[in-house]
C-alpha cells in the first residue's frame, strides 16, 4: 500500500483539481496555466525520448505538435460541430465527451506518420546533420499548413470551442482539464513503461554505442523509427490538446520558437530523466507565465527610476530573449540539466519507499 502512495496522491490531486475547478475555485487564467503545464509535460517528455534517451538532436519538435493540433482540430470540428468546411457534424455532438479520445488518438497517429520524415534520414545521418533535417521538417510542416487555404491558411483555424461547449452541455465538467490530465498520465506511463522494458533499452543503446547495439542484435533502424514515431505522436497529442485549450490554432504558433521551448524544458530537467523533465516542464510553465507580470513590473520600475527613455517600453517580446538566454546559461553551467540522466528516485533514494510505477 505504501508503495502505491504516490499514485494515490496523484489520483487525489487530479480529482481535487477537477472538483475545485468545477466549483469555480480557480479563475480562467489559473486554469489555463494548469492546462499548459500538462501540455508542456507531454511536449517536453516526448522530446526527451529523442533528445535525451536516444541522444539525437531534434530541433523541430513543434512541427509534429502542429500536425497534431491541426488534425485534432479538423477532426473534432468535422465530427461534432457544423461548420462551413465540413457541413453537418458526422456524429451527434452529445457523443463528443465519449469520442474525443478517438480524436486525440487519430491526431497522434497522424503526427507519428510525420515522424517518419525525420526517422528515415536518421538511418544515415546523425548529430548536426540530423538536427538540420529536423529544423527543415518543422518548416516544411508549417509551410504546408499555411498554404492550405481550406483550413484557414495563415489566418488559422477555429471552431473547437463549439465542440468543448457541446461537451459541457452533456455534463458540466471542466472537460479540457480532464483531457489534459489524462493525456499527461497516458504520456508519462507510456514513456516510463517503454524505457523500462528491454525493448525500449534499445533506444538508450543507440545513444550509448550504436555500433555495439547493431552488432549485438538490436535492429537500430527499427529502434529509431519507433523512437521518432512515438516522440512525434506524443507531440501530436500535446498539439491536439493545445488547440482545444485555446480554441484556435495558427501554424506560426508552432515555429522554431516553440521547438526551443521544448529544448529548454528538456535541457533544464536533464536529458534522459523522465521525472526531471516533468518537473522542468512545470517550472518552465510557471516561469514563462510569471514573466507576464514581471516584465511590466520591471518596465514600470525602470521608468519610475528614469533608467529607460519614455519612448522605450519593455514588452512581452523580451520573453524570447529570456528563454534562449536560459538555454545558454544552462549549456554553460550545467549542461547535463538539473537531474542529469538520473531519476528523482535515484537522487532521493528515500522516495523509493513511496513509489511503485508499473
Amino acid at each position, binding site marked *: 500500500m505504501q508503495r502505491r502512495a504516490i499514485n494515490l496522491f496523484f489520483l487525489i490531486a487530479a480529482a481535487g483539481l477537477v472538483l475545485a475547478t468545477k466549483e469555480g475555485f480557480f479563475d480562467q487564467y489559473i486554469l489555463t496555466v494548469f492546462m499548459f503545464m500538462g501540455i508542456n509535460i507531454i511536449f517536453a517528455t516526448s522530446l526527451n525520448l529523442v533528445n535525451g534517451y536516444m541522444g539525437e538532436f531534434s530541433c523541430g519538435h513543434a512541427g509534429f505538435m502542429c500536425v497534431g493540433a491541426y488534425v485534432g482540430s479538423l477532426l473534432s470540428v468535422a465530427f461534432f460541430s457544423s461548420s462551413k468546411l465540413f457541413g453537418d457534424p458526422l456524429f451527434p455532438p452529445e457523443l463528443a465527451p465519449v469520442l474525443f479520445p478517438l480524436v486525440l488518438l487519430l491526431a497522434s497517429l497522424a503526427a507519428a506518420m510525420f515522424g517518419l520524415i525525420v526517422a528515415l534520414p536518421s538511418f544515415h545521418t546523425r548529430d548536426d546533420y540530423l538536427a538540420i533535417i529536423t529544423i527543415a521538417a518543422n518548416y516544411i510542416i508549417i509551410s504546408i499548413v499555411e498554404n492550405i487555404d481550406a483550413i484557414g491558411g495563415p489566418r488559422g483555424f477555429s471552431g473547437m470551442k463549439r465542440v468543448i461547449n457541446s461537451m459541457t452541455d452533456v455534463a458540466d465538467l471542466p472537460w479540457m482539464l480532464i483531457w489534459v490530465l489524462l493525456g499527461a498520465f497516458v504520456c508519462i*506511463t*507510456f514513456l516510463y*513503461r*517503454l524505457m523500462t*522494458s*528491454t*525493448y*525500449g*533499452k*534499445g533506444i*538508450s*543503446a543507440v545513444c*550509448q*554505442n550504436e*555500433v*555495439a*547495439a*547493431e*552488432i*549485438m*542484435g*538490436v*535492429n*537500430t*533502424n527499427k529502434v529509431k523509427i*519507433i523512437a521518432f514515431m*512515438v516522440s512525434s505522436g506524443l507531440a501530436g497529442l500535446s498539439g491536439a490538446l493545445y488547440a482545444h485549450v485555446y480554441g484556435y490554432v495558427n501554424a506560426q504558433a508552432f515555429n522554431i520558437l516553440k521547438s526551443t521551448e521544448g529544448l529548454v524544458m528538456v535541457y533544464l530537467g536533464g536529458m*534522459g530523466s523522465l521525472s526531471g523533465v516533468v518537473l522542468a516542464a512545470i517550472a518552465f510553465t510557471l516561469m514563462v507565465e510569471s514573466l507576464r507580470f514581471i516584465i511590466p513590473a520591471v518596465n514600470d520600475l525602470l521608468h519610475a527610476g528614469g533608467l529607460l527613455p519614455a519612448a522605450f517600453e519593455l514588452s512581452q517580446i523580451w520573453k524570447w530573449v529570456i528563454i534562449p538566454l536560459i538555454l545558454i546559461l544552462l549549456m554553460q553551467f550545467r549542461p547535463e540539466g538539473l537531474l542529469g*540522466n538520473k531519476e528523482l528516485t535515484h537522487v532521493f533514494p528515500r522516495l523509493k519507499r513511496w513509489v511503485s510505477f*508499473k
Partner: protein
Amino acid sequence: MPLLEILGLTQRFGGLQALTNFTAALEEHDLVGLIGPNGAGKTTVFNLVSGFYTPTEGAIVFNGRPTRGLRPHQVAGMGMARTFQNIRLWNDMTVLDNIRLAQSHWLGYGLWDAVWRSRRYLRTEKSVEKKSREVLEIMSLTDYVEELPKNLPYGLQRRVELARALSTSPRLLLLDEPAAGLNSADVDGLIKHIRWIYDQFHICIWMIEHQMKVVMSLCQRLAVIDFGRTIATGTPAEIQANPAVINAYLGDDTL
C-alpha cells in the same frame, strides 16, 4: 558443412587494400585463432564476418547461408556474437541491462506489449532476466549486476562484454583481443573462462589475440595474416616455428 566458410574475401577502403583473398573454414566445435602484426587486417576480417562491412569481393557463408546484404543485427540473429577490441559496452545501463538487451533479437514482443505490460511481455522479460542472471553467474559477475560498466575496472568490463556475447547463445563467438590490457592474473582467469565456455556450450570460438600465452594454450589451429594476406596456417607449434611468421613479427633484417 563448415559452420562458417569464408571464400576469397577482399576488402578495399578507397586506395587501401585491407584484406586480400582471405579464405577460412570453421567447423561446429572449433577453437581457432587469427594472429598477425598491428594493422594486418584482423579486425577487418571480424567486421566483415559480423556484417559491419560489406566485402568488396568474396563470400561469407554462415550456417549455410550467405551473409552478403544482411544487416549486422540479422547476422547476430543467426547465432553470431562478438566482443570488441576497444570495449563497447552500454555504459549508462546497468550490467544486467547490458546482458538483457543483447537478447533483444529473441524478445518476440513489440511496442504495444511493452506499453500494455501484456502477459507475453511479462513472460518474456522474466525468462530474459533469468537467462541473464545465469550468464552473469557463469562469468562470476553476480556482485556487479546493478553496477554501471563505466564504473568497473577494465578487466571486469572485458568480462561483462564476454558475458553479453555469451548471453545471445551464439553458435559462433568472435573474440577480438579478449586479453588486451589484462594483467597476468586476469589473463589466467580469462583462459579458464574461455576453456569452460568452449567445453560447456560446444560452440565455435574464433579469437584475435596478441598474447601468445592465450593463443598457445587455447587454440587448435591458427591463421596468420600480414598486410591483409594470409602468410601461414597450422597448429600453434607449427606457427611458432614458421620463418615467415617470425619475419612478419620481428621484421626482415636483410635490408
